[in-house]
């Protein structure tokens, strides 16, 4: 019995949706469940000349992964530096705090001017989404590494570089990983904003916005569901690694 509880609410939502869709009978307000299912169940069919749901999803995932990796490649080293050195921290902190609240979407006009059309400016928007959570968690993770661990390493003869590689990084890894997970989630949420840029002529975000122009609400909802599912899948992947690789964190002490 209890095992069915998690699917109760989704079932209610689906049922409520279908009933409401029939009652309202306005595809702009709420398209019928079937029409959305039709889009979801034909993921390889071309939509509005913009490619299929599947191919656009693949493209979006590729872009997000790329932008995310870029963000991680910069945020992790910077975060380690800022976590270890108060001078570096003082140097960067104020600027980072100011830039952090600016939404990636607000960067669209400048991204376009600076990085031109194409992949670079899309990546920039995604990068912005992922960068700050990764950076802040890396700083926190590095600061949270037990001083004792570092001192043990020092008494056992480790030099600065070895302490970094063998103590700081593995010790901070679980928190950095959380940062990566959160960062990926936000990067993924930025894909719609990024694919609104001119020159992006594919991707899930583009497909949804383009479908809006022709009132194809069922395509928009299908896109939202795919975004939700992919986001969920990546989150689960990150959590799975967390559980299997960083189990020590929860069990420590």
């Amino acid at each position, binding site marked *: 019995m209890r095992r069915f509880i998690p699917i109760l609410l989704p079932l209610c939502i689906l049922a409520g949706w279908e009933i409401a869709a029939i009652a309202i009978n306005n595809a702009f307000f709420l398209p019928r469940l079937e029409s959305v299912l039709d889009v979801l169940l034909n993921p390889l069919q071309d939509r509005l000349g913009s490619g299929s749901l599947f191919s656009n999803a693949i493209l979006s995932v590729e872009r997000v992964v790329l932008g995310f990796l870029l963000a991680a490649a910069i945020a992790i080293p910077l975060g380690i530096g800022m976590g270890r050195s108060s001078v570096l921290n003082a140097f960067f902190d104020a600027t980072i705090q100011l830039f952090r609240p600016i939404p990636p979407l607000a960067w669209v006009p400048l991204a376009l001017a600076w990085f031109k059309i194409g992949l670079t400016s899309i990546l920039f928007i995604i990068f912005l989404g992922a960068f700050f959570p990764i950076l802040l968690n890396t700083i926190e993770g590095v600061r949270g590494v*037990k001083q004792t661990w570092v001192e*043990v390493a020092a008494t*056992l003869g480790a030099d600065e570089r070895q302490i970094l590689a*063998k103590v700081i990084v593995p010790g901070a*890894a679980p928190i950095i990983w959380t940062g990566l997970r959160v960062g990926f989630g936000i990067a993924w949420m930025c894909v719609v904003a990024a694919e609104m840029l001119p020159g992006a002529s594919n991707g899930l975000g583009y497909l949804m916005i383009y479908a809006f122009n022709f009132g194809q609400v069922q395509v928009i909802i299908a896109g939202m569901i795919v975004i939700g599912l992919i986001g969920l899948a990546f989150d689960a992947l990150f959590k799975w690694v967390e559980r299997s690789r960083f189990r020590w964190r929860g*069990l*420590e002490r």
Partner: protein
Amino acid sequence: MTLGRIMLEIRGVSKTFATEKGETVQALAGIDLTVAEQEFVCILGPSGCGKTTLLRIIAGLDRPTTGEILVEGDAVTAPSPKMAMIFQEYSLYPWRTVLDNIAFGLEVRGMERAERYSIVGRYLKLVGLEGFSGSYPYELSGGMRQRIAVARALAIEPAVLLMDEPFGALDAQTRNLMQRELLEIHNKTKKTILFVTHSVDEAVFLADRIVVLTTRPGRIREIIPVQDGRPRERTSPEFVQVRRHVLDLITEK
């Protein structure tokens, strides 16, 4: 009982900390102590009297405000391979197996895997945990963890072992067991040991000499040699007599 060669000299060491509020706290005042090779010295004193501070200074982790430390005649200014420290709190690397925890000191010296694992095997046996080489620290009890910390310290073959209340977190039975095992290790490896505790019982059970410190700033109040042979019987008249003397020392104000 200072019969052997001099291993460690503490010369006029004092330490003053500056707190965040700009006040100063004097933790230690003019400590002089000479420890012979193979000697087992216990340092006893009330909480906050500077025991940990003293051990850290000896280990080269902190610098004394005045005075100096000599190990085998050489001044200590940084952590030295001649000494290994075992900390009050659990200090194993939770992301490493027992084997790789013990091997840490050898690894940072660049020793090859095969060689270091064979050495580690010896020390695992010494602390009686042969079967646990693949386990992670969180899978072990507190007593087992401190045994591994001891093995890790011994593996780099230091001349001096510095132990800061290593059994403080253990329950009474385990603690008694660990004390007996430590004496056995001391007997087998002939290390010089400096052992901090605030348990009178423990000090009397383990030490060749007991150094009793005053409350902060810590000074040496008295050095009590324990002539009683080993193994000691906790209810023997000699034991009870030394115990009463030390208890009197620390309860009178």
